[in-house]
């Protein structure tokens, strides 16, 4: 079983969905990013998704887009992020505060520029277990999946409300770690309530996939999941935009996570 899947199953065995907070790398600035990262890592996040900024993030709403733009203006380099993670892992910097698994979420072009083989190598060394690349659908995924798999990294598939059960099954078979279920016909960003079609989408995904299911796009509070019928509840919940906004307003990531852990 892939590390990412094991992480989620472990949380589920304790009777709760796995928690997957999303942070745009180096946002709001490098120091506050690492503070937030440590608080999430120590505070009970099962997986942390680190957003790699891109100039043209077509699947993202205004919060993640704006965070990406600001981080890029501050001179973000993927090389630095991966080196910082490796330094912590290899004892050249303060060690990690927890043992959350790590996933990079980013668009294809910066990864291509970095070099797919080099990305897989450096990400593995940094302790990253997988990647989510929203502009790489299953049909185009071959070369990326191959490069990542060579280092044991998962390419996590995304599916949504308009994905047929048959397509979901293909994505799940090709993917590893978990399957990311997009809750809305839209972009990332918090919404007051889950869209009514989520239960149907989750139902199809459940039938199609042996991988655990992570629900994302629009989540900010655990109560949103309570509205779902039991069989439609996800194995993991991803929350990003609301957390970024909370950080940008001076809030702490630990405090935000406690909404979800109930601690």
């Amino acid at each position: 079983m892939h590390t990412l899947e094991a992480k989620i199953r472990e949380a589920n065995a304790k009777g709760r969905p796995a928690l997957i907070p999303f942070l745009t790398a180096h946002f709001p600035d490098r120091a506050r990013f690492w503070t937030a990262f440590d608080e999430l890592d120590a505070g009970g996040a099962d997986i942390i998704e680190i957003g790699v900024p891109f100039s043209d993030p077509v699947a993202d709403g205004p919060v993640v887009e704006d965070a990406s733009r600001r981080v890029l203006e501050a001179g973000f380099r993927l090389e630095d992020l991966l080196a910082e993670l490796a330094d912590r892992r290899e004892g050249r910097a303060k060690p990690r505060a927890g043992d959350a698994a790590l996933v990079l979420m980013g668009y294809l072009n910066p990864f291509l520029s970095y070099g797919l083989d080099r990305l897989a190598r450096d990400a593995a060394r940094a302790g990253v277990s997988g990647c989510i690349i929203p502009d790489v659908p299953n049909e185009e995924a071959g070369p990326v999946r191959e490069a990542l798999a060579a280092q044991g990294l998962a390419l996590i598939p995304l599916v949504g409300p308009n994905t047929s059960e048959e397509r979901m099954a293909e994505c799940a078979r090709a993917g590893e770690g978990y399957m990311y279920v997009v809750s809305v016909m839209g972009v990332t960003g918090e919404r007051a309530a889950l869209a009514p079609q989520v239960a149907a989408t989750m139902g199809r995904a459940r039938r199609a996939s042996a991988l655990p299911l992570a629900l994302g796009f629009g989540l900010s509070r655990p109560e949103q999941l309570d509205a779902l019928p039991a069989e439609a509840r996800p194995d993991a919940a991803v929350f990003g935009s609301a957390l970024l906004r909370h950080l940008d307003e001076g809030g702490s990531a630990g405090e935000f996570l406690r909404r979800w852990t109930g601690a």
Partner: protein
Amino acid sequence: MRKGYFGEFGGRFVPELLMPPLEEVEAAMRDILPTPSFQEELGALLHDYAGRETPLTHCPTLSRELGFDLWLKREDLLHTGAHKINNTLGQALLAKRMGKRALVAETGAGQHGVATAAAAARLGMECAVYMGAEDVERQSANVRRMRLLGAEVHAVESGSRTLKDAINAALRVWIARQEDTHYCFGTAAGPHPFPLLVREFQSVIGRETRARMLELTGRLPTAVVACVGGGSNAIGMFHPFVEDAEVAIIGVEAGGSGEPGCLNCASLNLGRPGVLHGSRSLLLQTGEGQVEPSGSISAGLDYPGVGPEHAYLRESGRARYDIITDGEALDALGRLCRAEGILPALESSHALAWVLSHAGEFKPGDQVVVNLSGRGDKDMDIIEAALAARENSHAHA
């Protein structure tokens, strides 16, 4: 070749939520577009509404000065002032037959937006146009035209506030509204099948040129020349000549001011392979893979990427792509106005400028066709400002 690819360029790099609507467009291309009833209705729209066929105009004065025959394919005479209407009528009609009631489109300078708004009005569809906030300010006349034609115009404030951000915004809107809305993409780029779909609707340019040239001269042109931003007018002119090895194919990119390191739009000459807006092509980007801002006096060429088929035609050696600067385009525009009484768009002026500056490559008897993709009325403010700035710098020199 792999489906949706031109050599190693093209593909469909989009979020999963856009796969079903793209497959729907692909199915309509296969099942609806080739039918006689679709072709008849589109043919009638192009003839009776848009003003096709457009003339192939010989330029007597410039031909005498250059020493070979120069011809212009007059897309500038089309309704709404440029070749864009060929594509928007085709896509709007296809969308209507797919059961869609609304169009969403991006626009840079506003020409594609105006052409989409006109096609939507003509076919009784709703239309929303996304335009970078900076372009909304620079091209206010086109914004007013779109609104008069009944379109909603949305200023896009994100990113660099220009065309590439307008495309991002339109793609996001399409994700949410795909059920009843078609994305009327404006150039021969984007995810499969848009490069093929736009080529299909723009190839009328090259087909007419080919037939008329044979009729008038009894042979094929020596060379066809077109400006390339995203590349829709160029692929429309080039495609019907690709198999004719004796016809030289020349695409002209916008080089900006021409100073070292200046903003430009020359992705074929100065870019490297990358993925933007759904396809793998050549792209102006940083070493980190971030898309760089582009720049040109011609708003319609102002795009950091380019259609994947052009990247392929360049790599295969079938087509040649050169760079023309703002100043050269402006000079060519002035020369065509005075010599032939035609005011070309700044975009098309790049193609003309290439012929003027490469006249030595042709000999008497050669037949060179420039695709005059649009008319220059829309550019009057920019032209006057550029000429005034030039006068000023000469006065101070």
